[in-house]
């Protein structure tokens, strides 16, 4: 089983994701440079890390989306491979059309770095089988443009297909306006594509995968992926 962390110029959570895969869940992982036109190895899961690819100039993720490697990422995703986009990675995935909607400036217009609570809305994805539906997890966010927006039709589809994976909530799991700190549509913090093999989320699971950093709620995204890749059906606990 092998992971790849895609590195764009300006990525800055690449080493963090790499660390968690290699040192916390102890799986093989490579860095893949954005200029590559092809993968040098077989990968089972691609991670698009957080950061400020191309300085996040123009729009977040807009320039990275055209990096040479992105054609392979799209191909990989369309063939059903697992792709996890975190923060800037989520933004790139929406720009690339692998996930619907877009991420715009936080409603208060400020960058926000803090712990948030998420309610797990879907534990049937390859990324969330180690959680249970309705579980509340504490995960940090750090972004200036993380408000998820989409049109009504898209929102309807997201709901119908159970594509909303995480919502911002209170510590008790109530999805309220006050827990929606960045002004996302319907408190959305993370979604999957229709097929369920591409997850984009604004919060940073790699920042809370070790107890020494506060908690390890985030680790279970990675262990879920491993479980799924090892053949356990999603949700099968």
């Amino acid at each position, binding site marked *: 089983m092998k992971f790849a962390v895609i590195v764009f110029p300006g990525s800055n959570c690449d080493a963090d994701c790499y660390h968690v895969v290699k040192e916390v869940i102890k799986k093989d992982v490579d860095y893949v440079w954005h200029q590559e036109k092809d993968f040098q190895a077989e990968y089972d899961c691609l991670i698009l890390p957080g950061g400020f690819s191309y300085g996040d100039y123009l729009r977040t993720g807009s320039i990275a989306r055209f990096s040479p490697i992105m054609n392979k990422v799209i191909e990989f995703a369309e063939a059903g491979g697992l792709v996890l986009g975190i923060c800037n990675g989520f933004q790139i995935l929406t720009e690339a059309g692998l996930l619907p909607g877009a991420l715009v400036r936080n409603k208060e217009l400020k960058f926000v*770095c803090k712990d948030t609570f998420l309610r797990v809305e879907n534990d049937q994805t390859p990324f969330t089988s180690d959680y249970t539906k309705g579980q509340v997890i504490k995960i940090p966010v750090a972004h200036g443009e993380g408000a998820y927006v989409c049109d009504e039709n898209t929102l309807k589809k997201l709901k119908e297909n159970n594509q909303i994976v995480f919502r911002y909530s209170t510590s008790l799991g109530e999805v309220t306006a006050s827990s929606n700190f960045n002004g996302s549509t319907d408190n959305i913090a993370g979604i999957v594509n229709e097929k369920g093999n591409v997850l984009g989320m604004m919060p940073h699971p790699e920042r809370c995968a070790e107890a020494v*950093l506060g908690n390890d709620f985030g680790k279970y995204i990675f262990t879920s992926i491993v479980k799924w890749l090892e053949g356990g059906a999603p949700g099968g606990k």
Partner: protein
Amino acid sequence: MENNTNNKPWVELGLTDHEYQLIKEILGREPNQVELGMFSVMWSEHCSYKNSRPVLKNFPTEGPQVLQGPGENAGVVDIGDGLGIAFKVESHNHPSAIEPYQGAATGVGGIIRDVFTMGARPIALLNSLRFGSLTSARSRYLFSGVVAGIAGYGNCIGIPTVGGEVYFHPSYEGNPLVNAMCVGLLEHKDLAKGVASGVGNPVMVVGAKTGRDGIHGASFASEELNEASEEKRPAVQVGDPFMEKLLMEACLELIKTGYVVGMQDMGAAGLTSSACEMASRGNSGIEIDVALVPRREEGMTPYEIMLSESQERMLVVPQKGKEEEVKAIFKKWGLDAVVVGKVTDDGILRIREGEKIVAEIPAKGLTDMCPVYEREAKMPALLAEVQNCKLNDLPEPANYQKTFLDLISRPTIASKEWVYEQYDYMVGINTVIRPGADAAVVRIKGTKKGVALTIDCNSRYVYLNPYIGGKIAVSEAARNLVCTGAKPLGVTDCINFGNPEKPEIFWQFKEAVRGMSEACKELNTPVTGGNVSFYNETKGEAVFPTPTVGMVGLIEDIDKVCTLGFKDEGDLIILLGENKDELGGSEFLAMYHGLEAGMPPTIDLEKEKALQDCTLELIKNNLIKSAHDCSEGGLSIALAECCMASGLGAQVTLENDLRPSALLFGETQSRIVISVTTENLKKLKEITNKYAVPMSKLGIVQGKSLVINGKGFSIDLPLKEIEARYKGAIPCLMRD
């Protein structure tokens, strides 16, 4: 007068007649315009330290832990395992006063370059900020712009901003202070220096292209601010953190190759300072052809190229023959790397434009030969009166509970969450103690270790008595580190004062450095580098003297890190140190009585050292569950902070005959609030006895309220209410 200036172009550039004479002697002729420009920036206070060098000599700079002391781009201390910590602080006060966002952002960019130039990967940023009162719209504008600028740069480049401090005081209204500190991790073998050596080695400019920005920024930083400062706006540059991220990765990759002989960032005075400083340190010369420097704009003159302060550029001297390897690395990151000259052996900085020589100056003429001034020092006439202000007969507050709530809502004391939530303090996944504590702690992956980081200065103390204030600044920084379980290793300082040509300012400066030096000696924290920023004045009024102290400490076992929050109900709350009747210089005195007067709290360095050693031993032996320094706002505020950090209340009884205001709100030094289980009390006493550290029982951890009782006072408040005031104060003021 006007005519005079016209005949003397050097005067307009900030040089004196005497200095001009010296320049002629150094050159053996009249300087041309380019040369004069180069001298003027290098001999500005900002680059030359001509007014401060003799005083700075008093700092202790040596110790077994010091791998690199002052003189390089950053200092380095050893943390064992073949690893070192590079760290440095720098001011960006004047640019931030004119354009807060970009001024602060480029300040962060500059200090990051100083650190990775040493071969260290930056792992943390801190900042120390001072603004006028938040009731002024301009202060709010500067404050929000500066914070956004620091965030904009640090977040984008991906270095966590883990700590800092913010004070609000009217003396900073016209001249805010913005000090940025960067901390990096290096392997001893990668330690790089800003030295040009090896005749024939190429000199390369790497990174961003050179534009017309920031010409004379260094001189600008060496003047008082006035209305005309607005006219100097081009001295402000725009930062490009994305470019710097690429530059940083490329430089660190380059250093790993072992091809680098020397490397230096282009900060103040740009190509001029980096070239002459590298040559000067290497006892060599450098020859540069400005025609080869990649440019952003057309038609730039040699003068402009040599003085441009365009950001995100470095000067690199690699081994001869490795030019192509260097270029390949930079190309991968999409950056220019161009050979613009070579190292020579004649000690001359020679600038050509194609075939034409446009400047020829002994490199040391620009650096070491800058004149040094022993300024006159005189205690300010009115200070004795201020110090002698009678504080003994002041009326006591009518309602201690209300006073407590007012105090905890003072912007200087209140939570700085509004600030640090805008900083990405977690990127890099090393931040074990986040902002909001005594000191930040960053783990060192691959080891059991961590480093604790802080930056501190109470400038009101320094104003009231610079000698004592200087001692306290160092002591408090060390105490903050100790509260996390870290052993203090070394200091970087940023001295922000008024115009040193005024004897009163120079006196403050000398006295503060004297106090800091004594404390650094006693606490074994040598100074490894720093920065001096003078001329922080508006309309002739200086800011409070502000010598900020950045400090790094080592935690041997990250699992033993200690935090400030109470941990479990029933634990005993204990005070290490003594309460005294000291209200001088306190925030309470300023708030309630409108007085900034008296003597600052006393400090006994030997006792301070004993307290710190004692606390470290307690933490090392797992005897205590929390530790928190008592600082602004005094014991009551410290207790409240311990409660809020964990959401656990406290029942406290202060049995003491001091007047309540001093007991609750006085800022007596050398005090730490700890918590401990009843079982460990005996062992704790053994250790405090060993160090002769006074200890007294304050109460127990309990409930969801903070209750403090004593003779003649009673505070009983739900934590929710305290927290609302503490966290709400700054957001509330910023909402206007």
